[in-house]
């Protein structure tokens, strides 16, 4: 877990832009990645990330109490993604898309050959991304936060507004479901 000094929050409360910059440096890469799994358009990703940091900056300056800045940032990002799809005309049902283009881009950029030792890894990444996309939203979300973003159970509970026990149970079921789907795909 990223521990950030309390003084950083206090500086943000005073409107210190440099404090915002420091927090950005710590969390922007992982947040961008988290957004990348959900939003395919690069400009939209950046806009969403920008909105997240500016919203957090305003909230802290208004005096909103924050116990865990990382969980707060992820929660804000999750809400921003939901808002993005809610405002988007392409999907009125507010279903968060799974970004499968990501994997295709990865393949193109990597120029992988079948003989490459990374081929297996790439294939495995493709497989797992695809199977993740087939999971329930809740399962996908929880696996993403736990194993890709490496958040604590308590943080995930805070982000998803559930109890830690419920998160543990859901995480277990999600992993089981993903494993089952992957085995089925491999066997086929």
């Amino acid at each position, binding site marked *: 877990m990223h521990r950030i000094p309390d003084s950083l929050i206090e500086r943000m*409360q005073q*409107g210190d*832009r440099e404090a*915002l*910059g420091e927090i*950005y*440096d710590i969390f*922007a*890469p992982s947040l*961008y*990645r988290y957004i*990348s*799994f959900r939003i395919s358009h*690069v400009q939209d990703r*950046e806009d969403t*990330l*920008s909105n997240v*940091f*500016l919203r957090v*900056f*305003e909230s802290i*300056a*208004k*005096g909103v109490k924050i116990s865990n800045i990382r969980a707060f940032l992820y929660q804000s990002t999750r809400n921003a993604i939901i808002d993005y799809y809610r405002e988007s005309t392409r999907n009125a049902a507010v279903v968060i898309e799974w970004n499968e283009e*990501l994997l295709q881009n*990865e393949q193109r950029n990597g120029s992988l050959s079948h003989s490459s030792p990374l081929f297996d*890894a790439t294939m*495995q*990444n493709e*497989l*797992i*991304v695809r199977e993740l996309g087939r999971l329930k939203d809740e399962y996908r979300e929880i*696996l993403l936060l736990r*194993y*890709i*973003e*490496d958040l604590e159970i308590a943080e995930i509970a805070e982000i998803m507004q559930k109890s830690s026990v419920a998160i543990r149970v859901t995480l277990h079921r999600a*992993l*089981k479901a*993903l*494993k089952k789907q*992957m*085995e089925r795909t*491999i066997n086929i």
Partner: protein
Amino acid sequence: MQNSEVVQSLRNLRYHFGAQPGSLVLLREKILQEADSINSVRRIHISPTRQDVSVFWKSQVLVHFRIVPQVAAALALVVVIVGVGSAVALRAKPGSPFYKMRVALEDTSVALYPQHATRAALEIELFDKGVRELKEVSEDDISSPTVFAVLDTLDERLLKANERIRTYTQAQLDPRLFSTIISATNKAINAHTTLKSLQESAPIAMQSKFNKAIAASSRLKLTALQVLVTYTDRSNDANAQEVVAEKLLEEIAAVKTSVTSLKGVREPEGVTEEPEDNVKIIENAISGAEVALREGKLSIALDRILESAEILESASIGRVEGESIEIVGNLQSVTSTNESSTPLVVDNDNERLDSSGNSDTSAPASTVSLPTKTEENIEQTPKEPPEYPVGFDL
């Protein structure tokens, strides 16, 4: 496939997905610029919740509390002014600019007491105080406007006391209450006597006011007697009955004096042809009152006295053509209804005026007063009235 393998595959994803190199740096600059603009807006629309404690304390708390001493000082000043003003006013003598304020404060103080008995006692004290003040101001100059003001106040207070004292009839039996009623009766008699004596030296213009006050004091006296008799009958207190009987005897004596005055005024002049029946009826009533008193029947005695008073009143009322004559005897007052608002006031116990309005102090006790505009009243008085009031020489 093991769970750990799936987890490891998931963990590996984090290294394969991320932002394009340099894109986050550019985004950082953009975000910080936006943050600057947010800051500038914040400075303009600064909110108290975003200020530090000291700023909040100074701008929000201290500003309001600074006003408190000023408001408190203003309120204290008002309280002091009202307090000092009230203290000064309560000591104001008639003629003082604060006299009316004092009267108002005294009336208010009476209204503040919830008990009827206390209010009545206060009203009695107030009219008695008015009588004393009237004596004082009359000694200096009876024709001064101050006397007018005091008379007006006294008249109002006599009326109020008359209303208040009636409440004693429903009061619970209490020896202290009896002494209060006796005291009220004595004070009413004193007021009546004082007013009549002062009226003798009062100018003609003030006679109306005096007569009004005398009538009020007379009513108060009778009401007090009624209350006294009612209360004594309820109490069955022999001592109280004896005291009341003495009071009624005094009243009988007063009525007798009035009857004698009537006779004395009428007979030598022979101006009216008023039947003597009224006098006889009065005398009979008085006799009945005396008999009832001897038998210890206070209520009957009082009824007889009241009866005699009524007849005395009717015998004393006369009319002059074009004028309504207001006659005030010992016990009653008749309101003027004349259109010219120039009532003639007649008191059979006081001085007498001749038809031209001049005073004749040598005449038997009988008074005609022209209240406000003496000359006008004299001019308006008919030279040959068709009918003269019994016992009054116009």
